[in-house]
Each structure stands twice: as structure tokens, then as C-alpha cells.
């Protein structure tokens, strides 16, 4: 057979890909990107909170991914603000619901459920979310993308096209003053980039794709092949030892981190036996109110983040409210629910137990605090051991919300 007979158009052509050609369309895609990033956080955090020992390696891996997903949200927010659009984090079509699919993914992608951590979850859901593109030459894809990396490629090409077509001023001329470079700190890799031009936009997009979804096809680097760009991280090395490593995409990628859990290379620690896709409706009385309190705090976090990433509401919205609630209120509430059997007589070690539903609720901060205080004073009637856990957990929540109330006095949270 002659070579001429081999079809040359072997490149898969997405059927419905329409390249980004206008700045509003670019904004629309970035807002979708925001939804995509946001949709990954609740399932990752649910798996994280389900781990009973927070010093476990799996805990460390998943947390680093969840934190970096939040970095990606902040990067997308900066990209949006750079072209004059404030991000929406609370709209009906933005807040994800579970179980469900990745927004705008062709064929939906993996079916995302809220579940306790298991190797199966890591493989079939988390690795699928972070699925790298088939090759570095995979084409850009917009709505109905196959991999998140290809979706960001469409956005990057959109930026390039728009800057070429409408000029720097036409794209970045109406940028808002709300970009942040200070809301990402602590552990986790990458940097928060403030975007004022095409180079900045590309840098921000590269931060996102390199860390996780990976425009780079992940594979172990050959020793000596990687440029010694600097030791950026501390983690598992090629030879299996743990120490300083190069910041290469493969070792640090989200895909690789979940793969380590999926294969058992990092053992799955003990988890709370949470039912899949929990709902406040699973519970009655004070317990249901506690489940709703979690959703209240989640809604509050989203509103505060929306304020922090799209308005002059600094530093209260982020440092006074969003950060404390994320760090000091959501985890104890989620873990309280995960230790609450659906049936009063069931052993919490076997469950099935309740869990966080991650449904958006629009309660105001002062009302949420009053509800938390009322719950702290209540006895849900599950016995003394449970009551101690209840009070310890809600005590931390009340303390956090009180601090947030002090900080947010006069704001519209």
C-alpha cells in the first residue's frame, strides 16, 4: 500500500468547536472555567474531610490538589477582571450540584459524586477529572471539551486572537481594579499572577494547566533530561524516596497525585463511612439543621470569595470571612456530619453516616451565627459521646463565625 493512501487528517476534529472571536465570548468561556474549577472543589474536599487521620499522606496529597484548585479559581478571577468582567461564584448556573458532570465537558466527563475517599474514587472520578490530553498537540476545545487542558488552550487562543484583532486596549483596556495577588499563601505550589497583558494571561493559564489538568502529557522525566530549573518542591522522587524534587509537571500534577492513591502507592487511610451524595434531607431535627449550617457556611464562603475576587471589599471578605470559614468552620462541620449515623442506633464506625451536601444557601452571616449558637446550645439526642463531639465541633464553628462577624461588621454579608 502506498503511503499516499494513509489519510493525512488523522487529527480528531471536534464537531462543535467554535473558536473564541470576541471579548464577551472570552469572558463567557472564562466564567465557564470558573464553574469548572469550582465544581472540582467540593468532591475533593469531601474526600479530604472523610480521612480520619489528617497526618496521612493521602490527606496531604488531596489537600494540595484542593488548595491548588482554589488557586486556579483565583487565577481565572484575575483573568476575568483583566478583561473587565467580575467573576460570578453564586449564580444558579455556576454553583455545581452533585451528583453531576463537569460543566461544559463533552459527554459530561466523569460522573462526579460526593464520596468518602477510596482508590476507586481516585481512579474513576478524580483521575478522570484531571485527565491529561492525549498528546501535546491535542487541539483546543471550547464548549464540549474533552480535557480541561484543551479547554484552556481554547481560552489561550482566544486571548491571542482577541489581542491581535482588537489590540491590547480592546482586550485589557477595561480591566477592573479587583485582581488579587495576596489571597494565595501557605502550602501548595504555583503563584497568583496579576494579568495586564497577553503575556500575563498566558502565564496565568500556564500556571493552571501545568499544575493539574496538564497540557503537558504527564510522564516521568528521564534523569538528567529535565532542566535544573530549581528545586520547587518536596515530595516523592523518581526513585521512590522522599525529598527535594524538581518542579516537573509529572511529579506535581494532580493526575499523578490521584494516581498514587488509586494504585495504592499511597495507602488509603481510614475514612468515615459517609453515604454517597449526602443531603440534609437524610436527617431530622437538630441534625438536619447542622447539615444546613454546613451549606450556609459554604454559601457564605462563595459570597465572600465573590466579594474578594470582584469588588473592593478587601481585606474583610477574604481574610476576615472566606479564609477563616474555609479553614476553621467547614472542616469541623463536615467531619461532625461524617460521624453522624443516618440511623440513630447505628454504629458511627460503620455508618452509613451523613455528610456535607455542598448546596448553596443564601443565609446572612449574622443569621448563620445565631443558628450556630442555637445548635451549640442544643442536644441532638444522640447520647453523651456524640454530644461531646457536637459541642467541640460547633464550638469551633461558633468561634470562627463570631470572628467573621466582628470583621464583617457593616458589610453586606
Amino acid at each position, binding site marked *: 500500500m502506498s503511503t499516499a493512501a494513509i489519510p493525512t487528517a488523522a487529527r480528531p476534529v471536534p464537531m462543535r468547536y467554535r473558536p473564541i472571536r470576541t471579548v464577551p465570548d472570552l469572558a463567557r468561556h472564562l466564567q465557564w472555567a470558573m464553574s469548572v474549577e469550582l465544581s472540582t472543589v467540593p468532591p475533593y474536599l469531601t474526600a479530604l474531610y472523610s480521612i480520619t487521620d*489528617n*497526618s*496521612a499522606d493521602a*490527606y*496531604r496529597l488531596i*489537600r494540595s490538589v484542593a488548595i491548588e484548585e482554589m488557586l486556579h479559581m483565583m487565577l481565572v478571577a484575575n483573568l476575568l477582571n483583566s478583561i473587565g468582567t467580575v467573576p460570578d461564584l453564586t449564580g444558579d448556573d455556576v454553583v455545581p450540584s452533585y451528583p453531576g458532570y463537569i460543566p461544559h465537558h463533552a459527554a459530561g466527563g466523569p460522573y462526579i459524586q460526593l464520596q468518602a475517599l477510596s482508590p476507586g474514587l481516585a481512579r474513576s472520578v478524580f483521575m478522570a477529572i484531571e485527565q491529561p490530553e492525549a498528546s501535546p498537540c491535542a487541539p483546543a476545545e471550547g464548549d464540549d471539551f474533552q480535557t480541561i487542558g484543551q479547554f484552556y488552550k481554547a481560552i489561550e487562543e482566544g486571548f491571542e486572537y482577541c489581542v491581535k484583532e482588537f489590540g491590547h486596549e480592546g482586550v485589557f483596556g477595561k480591566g477592573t481594579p479587583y485582581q488579587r495577588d*495576596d489571597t494565595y*499563601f*501557605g*502550602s*501548595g*505550589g*504555583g*503563584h497568583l499572577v496579576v494579568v495586564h497583558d497577553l503575556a500575563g494571561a498566558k502565564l496565568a493559564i500556564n500556571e493552571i494547566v501545568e499544575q493539574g489538568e496538564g497540557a503537558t502529557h504527564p510522564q516521568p522525566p528521564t*534523569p*538528567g533530561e529535565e532542566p*535544573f*530549573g*530549581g*528545586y*520547587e*518542591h*518536596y515530595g516523592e*522522587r523518581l*526513585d521512590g*524516596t*522522599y*525529598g*527535594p524534587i524538581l518542579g516537573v509537571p509529572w511529579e506535581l500534577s494532580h493526575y499523578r497525585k490521584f494516581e498514587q492513591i488509586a494504585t495504592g502507592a499511597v495507602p488509603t487511610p481510614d475514612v468515615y463511612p459517609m453515604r454517597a451524595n449526602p443531603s440534609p434531607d437524610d436527617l431530622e431535627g437538630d441534625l438536619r439543621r447542622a447539615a444546613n449550617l454546613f451549606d450556609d457556611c459554604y454559601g457564605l464562603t462563595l459570597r465572600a470569595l465573590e466579594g474578594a475576587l470582584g469588588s473592593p471589599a478587601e*481585606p*474583610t471578605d477574604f*481574610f*476576615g470571612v472566606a*479564609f*477563616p470559614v474555609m*479553614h*476553621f468552620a467547614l472542616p469541623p462541620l463536615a467531619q461532625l456530619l461524617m460521624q453522624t449515623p443516618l440511623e440513630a442506633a447505628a454504629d458511627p464506625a460503620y455508618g452509613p453516616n451523613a455528610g456535607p451536601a455542598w448546596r448553596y444557601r443564601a443565609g446572612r452571616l449574622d443569621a448563620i451565627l445565631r443558628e450556630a449558637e442555637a445548635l451549640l446550645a442544643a442536644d441532638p439526642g444522640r447520647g453523651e459521646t456524640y454530644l461531646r463531639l457536637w459541642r467541640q465541633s460547633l464550638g469551633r464553628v461558633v468561634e*470562627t463565625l463570631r*470572628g467573621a462577624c*466582628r*470583621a464583617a461588621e457593616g458589610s453586606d454579608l
Partner: protein
Amino acid sequence: MTVTYKIHPSIGVARVGDSDEFYLAPETPGGLPILPDGRLFEPRDFRDAERRLRRQAVRFRVFRYDDAHPGGVEVEAGQGGVARVEWTVHLANKKAIWYQFFVNSGEQGYSPDHLPRNPDVTDPERRQAMIIDPGPRTLTGPGQSARFSRHDNPDGYPMTFPPEGLEPFSIDTLGGMATDARGRLSVLGGHGRSGSSRKPPVIVDYANNDRWWDDTADGPVTAVLVLDDGSRVEVEGSAWVLVAPPKYAPQIENLVTLWDTVYDTSVRHLGLRPDVYRDSLWNRDYEVGFEREVLPILRRVERYPWVVAIPPHPHDLALDKLGDPNPDYARLRGYYLQVVRPPSAPNQFTSPETGYPQMPFLAGDNAFEPGPLASKYLTVTDTQYFLLAQWAAGKFRVRGDAPEPAAAALDRAALENCVGGAFSPGIEMTWISRNPLVYEAPFRLHRKRRVEPPLSLGESLAEGLEPGDAAKYMALPWQADFNECSSQPVGDRFLWWWPAQRPLFVDLDEPPPRRQVPWVGTDEDQNAADYLMFADDIEMVSGWKELGFVWNAGTEEKPRFVEVERVLPRKPRCPEH
């Protein structure tokens, strides 16, 4: 107030170098060394014209304390009724006859099964002969000098020196001393020469090697003022000099400095700060001065990524927010406090609240011997933790720290440039610095008043320290521990020891992006024996003087630390490419 005189710095630190030339120790925390001719220090000044490593001398001054000068004022020879200052220094090295260093065993007293070094030598006279003791030297006025050398014995003192012909390096001197025109004293240490009387010389242990000697030393610095009328006034506050290995990153401070450790002991046991700690109670109303008591600790965090391979992002702190009393940042401060390992939990790797690895990410006093003395991870001192906790709780002021008197600032600078932990054994001084019994006043070691030769084989802290008693615990030769104390496997992690003194990874002085390479070894194979250290400790006995220094080629606010003045050739990476 009666008039008293004290020497500052109360504990001064000289450092070895193979050159005869020297510079003066930095007199500010994290500051550059000082050149005797007043010129600004440059990278090339670390070495002499033959590229030998210059020694670091330490400069002592006498301060007068009276009603008009409660913080002290410097006394200068030829002024204010003081005709001249007579200085006496007595250095010795007692390492060869003291107990073996075995992590923190000994801090609470030595057990009967704890062997001394050179245990086969039991005859007291033979053991005393293993002390390096050149005897005291006195300078009676400005512009004089003396050597602590076996070839220079003005008073016929019964000197003891190791046998001649040690290998690889023999030891003939512990250094010297000189006075300047103003009556200040500079003390110089040895040349970093270490050797063994056994042939061939072999190093078998990180801290204890029999028939080995090195030329580090320590001892008291005393002074007498001779007034214009000929009367003599003894300076009441005597000082101490420690001769230590070089500090290869002079502008980078350890998270826990020796000043922090001695300060903690002074606060908790010597009543130095009753407003902070009194009658076993911490004053929870104490208002911390952010700039003096917290900010330096945070800045140290930010500089570690220049001397060790750790992720820079978590070490990049939002200092403007952390020093802002705005209640919005209360939780941010609390978040960082949770990252700090409490002194009560030296075996705790992760925070029980958050699961985060706790800081400092450094090995502790006893990182490798299990049992009741295990202390795997370094912690900040109790006082440091208290100050951080007060700050996290919002009890701090941003400004308004009274300026520190010059005399106290000299004490602080000398010790802030030293290692305050982990004491395994450490670089300049070990856990004996935590023992309140070794001090006669805060920051001032208790000097034994009448020292007669031969120096004692034991010690009585009640009587005070003799020459050689402050540093006799340290590794023998120091190069063995200096080589090995690079990274330490603890559990499934590698921890570091003293990256600010002994860097692990350094940046090459190249245009960006940063390229960080192992300070000692080759960077090709992370598991090679010569990756972060020389494959054999004995290579460090000569190799230390060829290693590079870490230099801030950027600014104070935006530093860029790069390796300078390395003499040792760095093996090319990937020779096949």
C-alpha cells in the same frame, strides 16, 4: 548607681580560616563581616590574595555603666581618665578529654555508661596532656599582639599541645589576639587545622574520634582598666570567646539563633524579663513588639529557601498583613501559629489540628535515638513560642520599640549569627547554653576566677567555667559533624540541620531562572554518597576551606542569594551531554 564596667559582646564568636589574614565578625544580626580598614565588605574579601579563607576575628570593647549611661557607653583608651586597657585571653580546647557527644544524653547529667573520648587513656596526667592549652596571654596597651602558639610562651606557662606531626594537619596554635589604637581587642581563632596522631588518620564517627584534635577553642576574655593616676580597675563583666567553624551564609539567620536560646534561658531562669515571665507564670497581657520580637523570626523564614531545597511559595509570607493589627488578619496570624511546632511537642511532625507539617522543618536535638530522650524535630524556644502566640492573639504593637543600647546590640548580634538548635551538637555551642548554671548574668558565662594549670579534667559549674569548658562538647574534629549534618532521614522525610551555617543547596550566580545546586556535592544523583556531603568525612577536613559562601546579590527587601568564592571545582553535570 555605682559605676561598673563590662566587656561586650559578652560572648563573641571567632571563626577559623586557613589564611593568616582576617576580617572582623559582623556586629549586626545577619550583617556582613567588617573589614579592619573600614572598606565595605565584598565577596572577594572572604578570601585572601592566595584564595585562602580568611579567619573571622571578634572585636571586644569595654563599656562603662553609670547613672548617665544605664545602657552603657564605650570606654576608650586615652579618654575619660582611662589611660589604657589591659586585656587577657585564655583559650583552650578540651574536646579530647571530655565525654563523648551522644545527642542530648548528658544534658541532665552523664550516666555511668557514658564514655569519655579517648577512653583507653586513663592516666590523669596523660589525659591532661591531651588538652590544648597555650595558657593565658595579656596585652598591656594599644597596638600590641600575641599568639596562642606552642612556639610563643612569654611566661613559661606549662603549655600542653597535641603531639607534633598530626595528619593530615598538625596543630601549633589556637590563634592570637591584638589591640587597636582605641584599646579594643580582637581575638583570632585557629586555622581550621585538624589532625590525628594515628596513621593513617581515619574518621569513624560524626562527633567522637579518638586521637584527633582540632584547633577550635574557647575561653574567657578579661580586662583591667589602668586609669590616668595609675590605679587599676578590674572590669567586672568578663566576656567569653568561642572559636567556631565558618558561617557560610553570613546574611541568613537561623530560625532559632543562639541569642534566642540564651535569651529563653535568661527569661525563664535568670529573671531577665519579669514583665514576660515571672514566678513560673507567662504574662498573657504582655504586648509584643512586632518589629523587634516577631518580624525577625518571620524574615528568617523567608530566607531559608536560598540555602536549602524547599518550596519558596509557602515561605513567602505576607509580612505587611502579618504586622497589621486589623482584626481581619487575626485568623491569618492564627494559621501561621498552627504551623509552628510547639516546644512541648518535639516529636510531633504534623499539626494535630491541620495535618500540616510543622516548622521548623529541621532535625531536633535527638533525631535518631528512640526512647525517652527522643527529640526528633527542632522547635522554637519557649519564649519565641510565647511571643508568637501573643502576637497571634493580637497582643502586639507595631511601633514603639525603644532602641536597643549599643552594648546589648553587640551581645545580640554576636549570638544571633549562631545556631540556637538543634544541639546535635550544633555549630558554635551546644545544649550547655540552655543550662542556667553556666551563667553569672544573662548572656554572660560564669567564669572560674582562679584558673591554675593544669586545666581540670572535670568541671564544677558552681565554681565556673575554665578555658575550653564552653565548647568541649562539640564534634571532634568539627569537620566530621559539619560534613554529615546535611540532611537527616527522620521517618520517611529528609530534614535539614543548620542550612544558614552550612548550606545544603545554593543558587548559582547566573541570570534567571534560578538554578539551585548542592552546596557540597554533585547534583546528578540524589542518592550518591557525595550528593549533599563529601563521601568521607575526612574530605571535609581539607575541603571546608574550598567551599563557597552565600552572598546577597539583591537588596535587603528583594534578596537574591548566590554562591560566591567557591574554590572547589564543581563536577559538571551530565558529562556525557
